[in-house]
């Protein structure tokens, strides 16, 4: 099987869907001639031309809105927002238009719109360029959110997003772009929102998503050396969430740890802890525990940036504490 980087996998997915369906087109800043800021659209401008790979001005709200209008008129636009940080300018188009039009129109209009945006904390990009927006987007009825953590998922979930008749946000991660992994283009993909048990274990359940799922796996490796077997679940998406897979694991292990890159307050972890506490109260041996970023904008200083974002060692330490206090 071939090995691809995350960005190459996204590139293949775009290429495959563009080849299969003429109504698919891409738009965003520097996606065309320049080949994409993170190379994701490399080669597509030459292959599909400037109408289907459209370089836009810096007008996020309006070009995302253009995607909404084109979707209503029968196209399958793929909007690239250069990074999640600039999606703040397009929230009107995303939240008030894309998410609500199918509902407001009484189901007359579908919203076959894909909005890709790499997010997360990269390296010292400062407070305005290190946004983690899952808090905000998760809360919006009418959106679907996928959070691929591996090249294979990037390939599968982007293709599924483009084929979806609902608006799908593909929340990528800047630090995953050069990660490599196997990508099989022939096997059938699991449903886009199916959570995946990335590692089986019986001592505790660690639930995570996006890059933090990989960090949780690394932490599980450290824990295994100490005889602690963590089950690691990668949610693969944040709206909807595959609660059945999560609940089955919590019922098996009785202990729940959630690892998220976004800050703790009113975040994804809060929703996961609350719902699983409701569903699995009888099986839980302790209150769910969260490892999350500190409730601060990202400082530019390198050490502080690392201090505020959970590292594998932080996840392992939390897991140890949870086990030691409850065994």
């Amino acid at each position: 099987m071939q090995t691809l980087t995350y960005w190459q996998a996204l590139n293949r997915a775009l290429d495959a869907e563009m080849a299969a369906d003429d109504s698919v087109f891409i738009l965003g800043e520097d996606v065309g001639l320049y080949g994409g800021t993170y190379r994701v659209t490399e080669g597509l401008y030459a292959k599909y031309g400037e109408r289907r790979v459209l370089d836009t001005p810096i007008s996020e709200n309006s070009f995302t809105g253009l995607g909404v209008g084109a979707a209503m008129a029968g196209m399958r636009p793929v909007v690239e927002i250069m990074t999640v940080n600039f999606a703040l300018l397009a929230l009107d188009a995303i939240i008030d238009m894309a998410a609500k039009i199918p509902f407001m129109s009484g189901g007359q209009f579908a919203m076959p719109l894909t909005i890709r945006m790499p997010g997360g904390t990269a390296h010292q990009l400062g407070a305005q360029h290190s946004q983690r927006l899952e808090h905000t987007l998760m809360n919006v009825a009418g959106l679907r959110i996928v959070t691929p953590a591996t090249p294979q998922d990037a390939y599968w979930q982007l293709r599924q997003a483009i084929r979806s008749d609902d608006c799908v946000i593909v929340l990528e991660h800047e630090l995953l772009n050069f990660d490599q992994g196997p990508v099989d283009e022939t096997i059938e993909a699991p449903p886009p929102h199916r959570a995946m048990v990335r590692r089986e274990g019986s001592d505790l359940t660690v639930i995570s998503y996006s890059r933090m799922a990989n960090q949780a796996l690394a932490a599980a490796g450290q824990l295994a050396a100490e005889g602690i077997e963590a089950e690691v679940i990668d949610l693969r998406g944040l709206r909807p969430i595959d609660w059945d897979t999560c609940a089955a694991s919590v019922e098996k292990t009785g202990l729940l740890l959630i690892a998220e890159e976004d800050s703790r307050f009113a975040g994804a972890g809060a929703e996961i802890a609350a719902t699983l506490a409701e569903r699995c109260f009888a099986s839980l041996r302790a209150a769910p525990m969260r490892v999350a970023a500190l409730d601060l904008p990202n400082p530019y200083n390198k050490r502080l940036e690392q201090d505020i974002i959970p590292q594998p060692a932080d996840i392992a330490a939390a897991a140890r504490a949870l086990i030691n206090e409850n065994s």
Partner: protein
Amino acid sequence: MDRELHIRFLRDMLRARRMEERFAQEYTRGNIGGFLHLYPGEEAVAVGVLHAAEPGDYIVSTYREHVHALVRGMSMRAIAAELFGKRDGCSRGMGGSMHLFDAAHRFLGGYAIVGETYPVAIGAAYAVMMRGLPEAVICFFGDGAVNQGNFHESLNMAALWKLPVLFVCENNHYQIGTEIHRHSAVTEVYKRACAYNIPAERVTGMDAEQVHTHTLDALKRVRAGLGPALLEFETYRYRGHSMSDPGSYRPQPELKAWEADDPIAAELRDLPMHYPDADTLKAAGIDTTEDIGHRAIENGHLDTHGLEKLEAEIRAEIEDAIAFALASPEPTLDEAKGYLTAGLIHETLI
């Protein structure tokens, strides 16, 4: 232009160029992180505009703002330390290269989200207007930034309420890799201002003197309470968009043509010859005025020497700033938490 002003311009342009070149080196050494957007090629704009500003004016800038900060009068030490993420940086290590702030110099910040400078600028201008002071706000932005909706929204409000703001477009013809004719239907940025009855003109940004003259004129109007003005300066960045962009999408002949127009080379070329007066020469014990005068004319040594001295001073300033940045301590997490509320009284609930 008189010699003194000319030398001041030359000095700041050289400081700007050398500082940025050094920052590029420090970036490759790993002392500076994140995105680093450099300014070489565009120095005449910062120098011409900011030498026309008064200390009471407010400056709002983008992520390509190190030179704006420097020419505004912020210390190179504080700028370098910020780029190094240190406690003595102008934003205490919290902001970084794209977010230089300095209240004392009324430098209202570098903003990394394209288009954010306009609303901040009209807000500061509204405050100035309410207080009835003869102050102005200078708002920098790039050619790519004029396609953000808040450009139009802010120009409209500025004109509607006659706000004292000077909009300064640094048109370097590119929005990262997208050339202006591919991002804007009308490539003359200044023409957009007429929709709001804002006087505007396009001026070369490769000549500090012209930049300065036009800025002084525009600021006169702004300070008089007649409303906003807009200046578009045509310029070019010699490097890529940031340190992570090689800039290879730009044709070599285009780059070469703009390099031939280098604003610093222009400053050097136009530098008026300056000779010591007779009394100075006599005091120095030189044979005859005529003789040294002739020799100076022939070989231009006086200027070359002066220039070398200037360069040496600038080198020393940069070494000092870098050493300062290296030695400055790392900020702590407690400090970071403290800055979230700027020290105002608050209740800690979580």
